[in-house]
């Protein structure tokens, strides 16, 4: 069965394009949540294997969502990929990624190949 990835980002166009790419190139089953306040509920029902989370969002930001996920026994072990434009791309150039616990930080705008590589690493064999 294909691994399930949840995309949480307020930008609908971006998530839609990313979803199509992840489905096509990674063979993942992808769900989109554009409203961060609904992220936890969606995650609980969708039960993703990985969550791609934008940091800057209206309502709840990525950090808040991540804290919620951490507190949920069913979701706390799910690997999270945080996308942020706050990290200078120069600092994470050449495909470097910053990792802390189950969270991987990727610079935004996201490089599709880099995201696919990271997902491959953090996800269990599909």
């Amino acid at each position: 069965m294909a691994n399930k990835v949840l995309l949480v980002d307020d930008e609908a166009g971006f998530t839609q394009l990313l979803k199509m790419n992840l489905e096509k190139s990674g063979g993942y089953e992808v769900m989109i949540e554009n409203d961060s306040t609904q992220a936890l509920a969606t995650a609980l029902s969708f039960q993703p294997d990985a969550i791609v989370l934008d940091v800057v969002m209206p309502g709840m930001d990525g950090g808040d969502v991540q804290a919620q996920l951490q507190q949920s026994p069913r979701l706390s072990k799910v690997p999270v990929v945080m996308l942020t434009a706050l990290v200078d791309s120069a600092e994470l150039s050449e495909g470097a990624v910053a990792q802390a616990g189950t969270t991987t930080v990727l610079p935004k705008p996201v490089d599709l190949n880099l995201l696919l590589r990271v997902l491959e690493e953090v996800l269990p064999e599909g």
Partner: protein
Amino acid sequence: MQKQSLVESVLDNLPVAVFAKDATDDFKFVLWNKKQEEITSLRAVKALGNDDYDLFSEESANYFRSVDKAVLKRGKLLKVPEEIIDTKHRGEVHLRTVKLPVKDEKTGHDLVVGISEDITEQVQSLRQLEHLNKNLVKTNKELADTQMQLIQAEKLESIGRLAAGVAHEVKNPLAMILLGVDYLSRGIDPDDGNVETILTQMREAVERADRIVRGLVDFSSQRALSREPVKLDLVIEEVLLLVRHELTRTTTNVVIDIEDNLPHVFLDMSKFEQVMINLVINAVHAMHDTPRGELLIRGRSERIKDVIKNQGARKFEVFREGDRVVILDIIDNGSGIEKGDVSRLFDPFFTTKATGHGTGLGLSVAKKIVALHGGNLTLENREDGKGARARLILPTEIDTGKVSLVPKLLKEIDT
């Protein structure tokens, strides 16, 4: 000794020097009052009965004699606004003198009577004033220069802020276009070769735009530097490795001449590498039409001296006399810099390269990074006219307080 006459005591108490020469008797002095003794450091007993040639240098004596003769010839008073005599005790003394012809009625001799006022102090004050004035003019010019630099810096900062805003807004749409291209390129109809070409060109166009955006972000970067003491030869080695492809492709010969035991410099490695890569690539591109391109990278250490000469006040703030600095030259034998381009080299978006081959941000970013390091970057044609020279001057000390140079100009970055 004769009892002093009334006239003599009046003369001796005058605040001006008074003397008289007998023109009929070879211009020998016949009168020499107290003040004259004081001014000339010569006693009356020595002066009386002698002439100018006995008492002063030949040059001075010639001059005095010619004035005396002119007075006699004209038969009336002559003013000498300033004359200088060399004295034993006081060196050069400046005098304002009037000379007048007088007929001695007893002897019938023609006399030249002189009255001199010591104006040495006034002259010195005037000189000082002139000197101060000259300094003031110079300071004023430096101020004007600094103001120009401030305006320029302010201009660059404004561009930077504007650019950062634009860059941020443009980054995400670009990423989305790229995602779209990524998607489309994974399902191309193999029979339609055009689709692949179109997608490749679209991707290249987006990447080009992305490079410009990144350049803009770098240019306006407010990120603090993360500096560490490094050996310059290692940095250069690494940079050359990164641009090896470009050097091989253009068959550029690289000569490295780094002084032994160069002091460490405090650099943010990744930022500084960016500077070096920019400068090296620029040099390589400038040697495009040179049959045997040769790149010389020369490093040496020096103590700063004569800081102010030909440099603006802003640079003066960067280094002080006696500071130990490392000077790194990147010298090419390429086409050099066009005269009209010199003043715009470091302006953002200024480029001499064809559209699409340069963002015009490389040098402005490099200059800014070097400035953040408390250093200085200049670019000029070689003295022999056979190419250009980029010169980096870098401080070797970090805790001198000079690191955060021109704090006002770069306050955005410091805060």
